[in-house]
């Protein structure tokens, strides 16, 4: 027990130090710097990390293979956007429609209790975004959660497409602006805190903070009796039921929780990108999140976080040179042109899917002991490479 407390304390300190560093980076790095990509990666990465972890909760821990994530993120993004567009900007955003919502939560609250109201308003809007996604998940879950693996996947995928169509429907234009995008709402690039003369920029800190808190909550859920029940359902439905776990109830709970956090990550995505457009939330987005989960290891929360950040930093930052003609000093404008980055990247993904099926973490979590053992393990791994190559060539066709 005592050891557990010590462990928890250490991880809390690590998280706080990490948040402190992010806050510091937010001040030091200017948008014009070379390193500004780091901030973009942190912002987008935290959005996708939360999305990936919430998908892992459903696909990895409960074993429900759902492909409806983009739909719930869309609901979150739109709910957040609709609730935080300032009244004055509404006429400009809803060009072809008469806006149905005529207030903005941050605006109302900041009129009431001053600048802190804006922050509180944003927070409330984010939570409402999650709750609406959760409500939709409940309604969708009623019919589809009875379905088995592949059928569940295709039905949830279908629902995501239906949601997208509904949000683009011209009759709902007063709410959703039809097929046009929503903009002008509270976004991270304007998040600032004024202390005396000094203005603290929070544009990266806020998404990272929200993602950290949400992922922390998911870790707590995973370690609770509910989390254990989810894992039991994944491992063997029939055995779990025999042990007294109410299948329908727990599946629904997992589905709704996952969608709640997907909704929040959608709201964060709107915040970070400063636009919300239904046509962005295609099934391709779900696939990308799924690939992040696979990259990190299905069934590992820390794996999903690592997978998401690796995915985003590789595709947005490290491989960017592949698109613009020069990468790692190699200059080949003929081959390194637009889109090459994604080709290389998808080949890497395929290699992971085929040869490193467990992903980076497998179903283990990142622990302090593991980090301590790294130098030794890496040394051993490098030493074993010649042997591995040898066995690769002498491998017989296994039957």
């Amino acid at each position, binding site marked *: 027990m005592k050891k557990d407390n010590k462990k928890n304390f250490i991880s809390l300190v690590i998280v706080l130090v990490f948040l402190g560093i992010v806050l510091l980076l937010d001040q030091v790095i200017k948008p014009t710097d070379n390193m500004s990509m780091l901030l973009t990666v942190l912002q987008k990465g935290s959005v996708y990390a939360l999305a990936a972890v919430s998908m892992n909760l459903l696909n990895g821990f409960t074993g429900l*293979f759902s492909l409806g994530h983009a739909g719930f993120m869309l609901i979150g993004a739109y709910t957040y956007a609709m609730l935080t567009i300032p009244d004055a900007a509404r006429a400009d955003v809803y060009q072809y429609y008469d806006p149905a919502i005529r207030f903005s939560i941050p605006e109302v609250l900041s009129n009431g209790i001053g600048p802190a109201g804006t922050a509180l308003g944003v927070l409330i809007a984010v939570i409402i975004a999650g709750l609406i996604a959760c409500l939709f998940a409940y309604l969708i879950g009623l*019919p*589809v959660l*009875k*379905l088995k*693996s*592949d*059928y569940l*996947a*295709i*039905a949830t*995928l*279908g*629902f995501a*497409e*239906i949601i*997208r*169509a*509904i949000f*683009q*429907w*011209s*009759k709902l234009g007063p709410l959703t602006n039809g*097929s046009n995008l929503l903009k002008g709402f509270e976004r991270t690039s304007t998040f600032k805190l004024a202390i005396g003369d000094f203005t603290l920029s929070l544009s990266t800190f806020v998404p990272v903070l929200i993602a950290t808190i949400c992922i922390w909550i998911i870790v707590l859920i995973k370690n609770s009796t509910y989390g254990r029940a989810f894992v039991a359902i994944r491992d063997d439905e*029939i055995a779990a039921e025999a042990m007294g776990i109410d299948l329908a109830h727990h599946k629904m709970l997992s589905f709704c929780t996952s969608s709640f956090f997907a909704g929040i990550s959608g709201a964060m995505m709107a915040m970070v990108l400063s636009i919300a457009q239904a046509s962005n939330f*295609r*099934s*391709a987005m779900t*696939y*990308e999140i*799924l*690939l992040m989960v*696979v990259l990190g290891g*299905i069934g590992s929360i820390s794996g999903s976080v690592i997978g998401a950040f690796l995915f985003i930093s590789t595709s947005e930052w490290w491989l960017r040179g592949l698109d613009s003609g020069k990468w790692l000093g190699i200059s080949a404008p003929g081959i390194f*042109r*637009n*889109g*090459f980055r*994604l*080709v290389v*990247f*998808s*080949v890497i*993904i*395929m290699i992971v*899917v*085929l040869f490193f*099926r467990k992903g980076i973490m497998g179903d283990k979590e990142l622990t302090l002991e593991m980090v301590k053992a790294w130098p030794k393990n890496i040394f051993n791994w490098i030493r074993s490479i010649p042997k591995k190559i040898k066995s690769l060539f002498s491998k017989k066709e296994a039957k």
Partner: protein
Amino acid sequence: MSLWQTIFPYILSGISVGGQYALIAIGYTMVYGILRLINFAHGDVFMVAGLSMVYLAASLPLYLAIPVMIILTVALGFTIERVAYKPLRTAPRMSVMISAIGVSYLLQNLALYITGGLNKNYPEIPWISDKITIFGATTTRVTVITPFVTIALVLILVWVINHTKIGMAMRAVSKDFETAQLMGIKINNVISITFIIGSFLAAIGSMLFFTNYPGVVPTSGGMPGLKAFVAAVFGGIGSIPGAVIGAFIIGICESLIKGLDTILMSQGVIAEQIGFATFSDAFTFILLIIILVFKPMGLFGEKQTDKV
């Protein structure tokens, strides 16, 4: 204008689209029947078939371009199975599905790289692209011949499956994978042939499909692919006639929904546009969910029971 005259063009294009979906859906349903795998990459194979036709027709005469395109598509389907699915034969089903999603991602990105994300105009194929008038509705010839081509190909396929040795092997493998293997059926060959047939039909389907559309983009395969899969589920996955009937139903419904505003307005039911066309894609999925909830095995699927 009478109701029939308003509806007829939509039904005509619906039957044609349905025929094209049917050709893709067979690829899904056969693969699912044997491997229990939703081959998410199949829609992208269809897209690649369209793109390779664009590039081939630019340098080769049409009578060479079409067979080369078909051969390339078949080779692609075969390669995908050998590289991405075969190594995972003993892995959990989820891993194979993820691999399929990965292949789809790869093909789309590859197409994006090669085309530069631009819309590529599909070459005009003489005779089938010609405009004709049928019962007062003007359309292209491909619209009219598609259902006949589809039905002819399906009849040949059904004959192959019911009356040849390889067809018998396919039926055996889809009934029981392991027993078939023990009986001496070369399972890898059967699976490869399934992929070859599926890709061949997708190649023919792409030719009929893209002739009626302005062009090919890397995401062109996604939606038709998903709809064809829904058609396969609708008809009962694993059943070829089921997939074909499902595809025709989905094609006609989709086309009617696209024109529902116009049809209802011409009949005076509604006074202004409601925007039903937004739901032409979503409707397919509504249909899917209804069928999954009320008849999970589809119209012609076999009932399966889980064993503990």
